């Protein structure tokens, strides 16, 4: 591609963006303190928080107006995802909105679909590599519908009783889902268009997951910074030791880089999807690798207090690992990037 093309590089947020961001930040700091996060760990889901979030319009905003939604942009959604990550919110918002947006792309919404727009019913997206047999679904234990691929079909699996949750490092409502055990199976679409729509849903999931990890890492960084400023060794705050401050500075760089990349990826996916198709995967690959590394360091900086199970730091650590991994091996996304770029440059 022309690396010297004349495009704007305007990462600034509008006043509306800033309002949206601060509304969700305030909402979550009120309704989702760390105690709420801890209390939901056994289930991986806080239904009360979910209902409040839906009442705020968090799910309807994500759908186009034609589908009964409020038509937010993907940029708007990255802002919400970042706040949910910052708060470690135990709600499957990313999976749900990506799945529901996919349903709306594939055809008119039925009654269940309309209930998904408001968040009254939950949908899950299978973000795995699309192989046959039972697979782990991040929000599989609490959803009525699981949207997945099967050959060249996109299908909705209905479970009257959702599969049982399994304990997992991301503290997600994760479950083994076996398509053969579904109570019903509805084909939502088939062929190239349906599969392309599914790939778009995965790209959206990757961007929003990256954004959530950015918020998560920034919150973990803030906790570590406050700790380092108040902890003394040999008469000086440990924050003034470069063995502490430089790794924390590197995490600040990760936050700035990952945040801007996720937003740029969202902008292209929203406005010129064919132009930079590798960016959603790039944002995901970068944050999936950096988030656990950063969370490990923010935990480490707090020493024995950081690794205790009660420490907020450890809550961030396990989710930094588990949330990205719910999407499968990030290497698959890296390989996808290489093929997209090789195709572009090979044809150039």
């Amino acid at each position, binding site marked *: 591609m022309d*690396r010297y093309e004349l495009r704007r*590089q305007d990462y600034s947020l509008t006043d509306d963006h800033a309002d949206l961001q601060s509304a969700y930040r305030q909402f979550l700091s009120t309704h989702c303190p760390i105690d709420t996060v801890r209390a939901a760990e056994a289930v991986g889901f806080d239904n009360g928080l979910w209902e409040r979030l839906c009442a705020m319009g968090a799910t309807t905003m994500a759908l186009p107006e034609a589908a009964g939604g409020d038509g937010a942009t993907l940029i708007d959604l990255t802002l919400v995802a970042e706040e949910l990550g910052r708060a470690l919110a135990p709600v499957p918002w990313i999976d749900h909105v990506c799945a529901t947006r996919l349903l709306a792309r594939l055809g008119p919404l039925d009654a269940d679909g309309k209930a998904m727009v408001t968040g009254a019913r939950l949908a899950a997206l299978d973000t795995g590599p699309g192989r046959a047999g039972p697979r782990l679904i991040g929000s599989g234990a609490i959803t009525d519908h699981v949207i997945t691929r099967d050959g060249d079909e996109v299908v909705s699996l209905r479970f009257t009783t959702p599969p049982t949750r399994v304990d997992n490092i991301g503290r997600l409502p994760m479950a083994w889902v076996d398509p053969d055990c579904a109570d019903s199976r509805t084909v939502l679409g088939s062929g190239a268009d349906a599969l392309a729509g599914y790939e778009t849903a995965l790209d959206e999931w990757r961007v929003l997951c990256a954004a959530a990890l950015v918020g998560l890492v920034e919150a973990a960084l803030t906790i570590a910074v406050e700790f380092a*400023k108040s902890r003394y060794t040999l008469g000086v705050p440990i924050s003034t030791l470069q063995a502490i401050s430089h790794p924390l*500075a590197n995490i600040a760089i990760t936050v*700035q880089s990952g945040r801007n*990349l996720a937003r740029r990826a969202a902008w292209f996916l929203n406005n010129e999807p064919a132009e930079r198709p590798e960016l959603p995967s790039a944002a995901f*690959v970068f944050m999936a690798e950096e988030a656990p590394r950063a969370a490990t360091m923010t935990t480490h900086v707090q020493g024995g207090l950081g690794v205790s199970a009660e420490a907020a730091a450890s809550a961030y650590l396990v989710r930094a690992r588990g949330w990205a991994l719910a999407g499968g091996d990030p290497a698959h996304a890296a390989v996808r990037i*290489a093929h997209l770029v090789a195709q572009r*440059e*090979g044809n150039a």
Partner: protein
Amino acid sequence: MDFSEVVLAEDDRQFQREVRAVLADLVTDEVIRRDRETGENFDEGVHLALGAAGYLARDWKPVAEGGFTALQRRIWELEIGRAHTPWFHWPTTAMVAHSVARFGSAELKDEVLPTTLRGEYRLCLGYTEPEGGSDVATCKTRAVRDGEGWIINGAKMFTSNAQNAHYVFLITNTDPDAAKHKSLTMFLVPLDAPGVEVQSIRTVDGDRTNITYYSDVRVADRYRVGEVNGGWAVLRDALNAEHGTVDRDGEGLQKLATMTEHILLMAEAVDHVAAKVAERDAGGTRRVDDASVSYRLGRGVARMEAALSSPGMYGRVAIAQTMRDVAPDLMDILGTAACLPVGTDGAADDGGAEYIFRLAAPTGVYGGTLEVFRNMIAQQALGLGKPSYASPERTTARR
């Protein structure tokens, strides 16, 4: 938020065509070859031609005085990069000229500025010292009053382009007993003054820089820039510009960080590697279909795009660090032929990745090492406080 292509009005489109044509004409294969050989990042013919055409002056001046608009400057920077123009020293010259305009005497401005903007004078930096490292405030080069003038003695490292320059922006110590930041005075020293010696140093990326020696160099007081013992204020102002920590516009037309030029060179190298692995060999195999190749390439692209998105002082670190992290993988992907430099028979991607690997080392050093910027992020963005250093005095006292 906006990443759209800029829609150009006819006069801006005309400007873009004109600049592209001028540079295509000036930056010949011969210029590129000579630049590679000498490592000077400078070509006098190109520089003078651009000066004569008025581009240097327009790049330097504010819009109100006939300078480039923000859009024209962006077009200009991108076209300079596209043509691989030997260029890195013009921003240095321009920065010093800004300091002279701001802090210099009327006499000095008259002597230096018009000629510099025509391209005939070049200005270089004399900050770092052989023993000083990245802390430019630890300055041993001395300037001592001598009647109406000054006598300068000392040495400076990395006075890049001194061999093509006419003045050096020299930070000196004028009060060794004063506190570090109250002891400095800035001068613009003519490089043809008796007692100045320029010694060449080549760096691992093939660039040429210099060490310069100053032995009883006499300069008139009009070459002083700023107050006596007030050099820190002059330096601070110039460093802010160099570090890219100045305010940005809201239209997305400015460079996101300093040294984006370097990561764009890596982006070109990455694209070449991608094209290379997409080729079919005699047996019809594409290397990108080998997952060990595609995984590393994809991961490298991801990390590069993150660095390309990173603003200001964050970007300054991310760019150099990412070049260092990714270039080795790019070379591995290409195999042994990635050992071969540009122009060598059978060089994998004509030495693209090999060059980026070597360029990555100085990119993390010059203009302030990565540690300087990590300190800045730690202090200014995170509020972690000034670094604690175990000074020899304190260690002794504690014993």
